[in-house]
């Protein structure tokens, strides 16, 4: 009996694989996420040194040698984002006061937990680039977590988390979700041009910008190459608002509506899908947020 089974094992295996590959929908493969996590952990000791070596050989985007300057630039970026957030918060509170007067409930602000983590692997498919990060549920990562890179550049959201690892999907990944953003027209002014950006699959985001006119002159207010675009998407945690999506690289007329503009935005950090480390921000919810 045993020899017959061993002779048929390859055939049985191939049939089983064909069924899994061709007939079982993706939602029934979720058990494989557990296996992926375990394999990722096993591969991390050898993968991460190679990632760091690769980043060093590539001369990766932001130089980490001048740490003081980098910290200074980050501080400036943080203060700028905080300023815009506070001004936006002021505008929101004004509206809340008006809403309270008509009896609506107030929404509380949202503190975050910050965690720096290394990237130990990348999705091996060009069709779906993801980053595998050495931080998971045990370190407080939740489905609400998102990642940023130096300069408060938004990297992406956590799409899967295991006890000690998590998977990030970069905002520039092909097939990714559309993002609501804002083209900042002048420094410190949170009232910019709203836009909806989708990933192009070539490391950039592209999408239409709202058509707005100057009330004084009726001239069209248009985006300019080099302006900063910030995240202003209600589907993302509040803590992510006004973080950087990138800079306007190109402005073109919309093919469907020539009077409207379409912008191409390039992230300020090159190669979001090849970073060697990220900073994870996790909004702190409910009881945990109380002082």
């Amino acid at each position, binding site marked *: 009996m045993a020899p017959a089974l061993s002779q048929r094992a390859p055939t049985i295996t*191939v049939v089983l*694989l064909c069924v899994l590959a061709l007939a079982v929908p993706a939602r029934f493969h979720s058990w*494989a996420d557990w296996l992926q996590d375990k394999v990722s952990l096993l591969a991390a000791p050898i*993968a991460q040194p190679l990632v760091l070596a690769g980043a060093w050989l590539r001369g990766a985007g932001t130089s980490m040698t001048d740490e003081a300057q980098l910290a200074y630039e980050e501080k400036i970026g943080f203060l700028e984002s905080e300023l815009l957030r506070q001004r936006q918060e002021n505008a929101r509170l004004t509206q809340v006061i008006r809403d309270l007067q008509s009896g609506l409930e107030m929404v509380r602000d949202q503190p975050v937990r910050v965690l720096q983590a290394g990237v130990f692997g990348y999705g091996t498919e060009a*069709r779906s680039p993801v980053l595998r990060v050495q931080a998971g549920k045990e370190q407080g990562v939740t489905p609400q977590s998102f990642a940023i890179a130096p300069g408060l550049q938004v990297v992406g959201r956590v799409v899967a988390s295991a006890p000690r690892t998590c998977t990030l*999907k970069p905002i520039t990944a092909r097939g990714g979700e559309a993002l609501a953003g804002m083209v900042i027209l002048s420094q410190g002014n949170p009232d910019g041009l709203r836009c909806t950006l989708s990933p192009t699959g070539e490391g950039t985001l592209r999408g239409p910008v709202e058509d707005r006119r100057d009330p004084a002159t009726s001239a069209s207010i248009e985006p300019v190459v080099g302006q900063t675009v910030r995240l202003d998407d209600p589907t993302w945690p509040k803590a992510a608002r006004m973080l950087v999506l990138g800079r306007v690289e190109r402005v073109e007329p919309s093919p469907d509506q020539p009077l409207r503009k379409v912008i191409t935005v390039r992230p300020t950090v090159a190669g979001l899908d090849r970073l060697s480390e990220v900073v994870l921000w996790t909004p702190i919810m409910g009881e945990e947020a109380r002082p």
Partner: protein
Amino acid sequence: MSRLGLVLATWVFLGLDLGLSKPLLELGASGVAPSFLFILAAFVAMCGTGRAPFWTALALGLLADLMADVGLTSPDGRAVIIGPHALAFLVGTQLIIALRGVMIRRNPLTLGFLACTGAAVSQIVLVAILWVRMIFDPLAISPTHDLLVGLGGALYTGVLAVPLALVLLPAATFLGLPSQQPRRFSRHA
């Protein structure tokens, strides 16, 4: 065949795939990158005997499935699908087994050629499987684009296999495979 040797080699090549293939060796932002796992599968298929190439290709293909997230247009965003890479690796290595009889296995260029052709067939099978899955799964893929990227990756894999053959051929005995090194005073060439 030495299972310990194969496990160690798999661990190293998996690390190379995760840590070097896309981050360092990818051609720009094209997505064209080599597959270290397939090079190992091709080597075992070229030199292995019995069922070793089959089970090795299966194992390496399953690892490739686990490491390759497939993008979805649904809110989930991504999924791990077991089977496509495993089947693709099996078909690719079967081609290598069919061709190895007419090749000079000691020559590093042989591994490059076999890895390239095997990987090309493997990518065609992979894209075909994912294309069929699009009937019932919301996959975020473009079959034509992915096929071109895959074929470019196969060529890249073949090119990379040549220098790796210089390491793998002498290490064949470590993996428990028949030595591919020429022996002095050997009766056979």
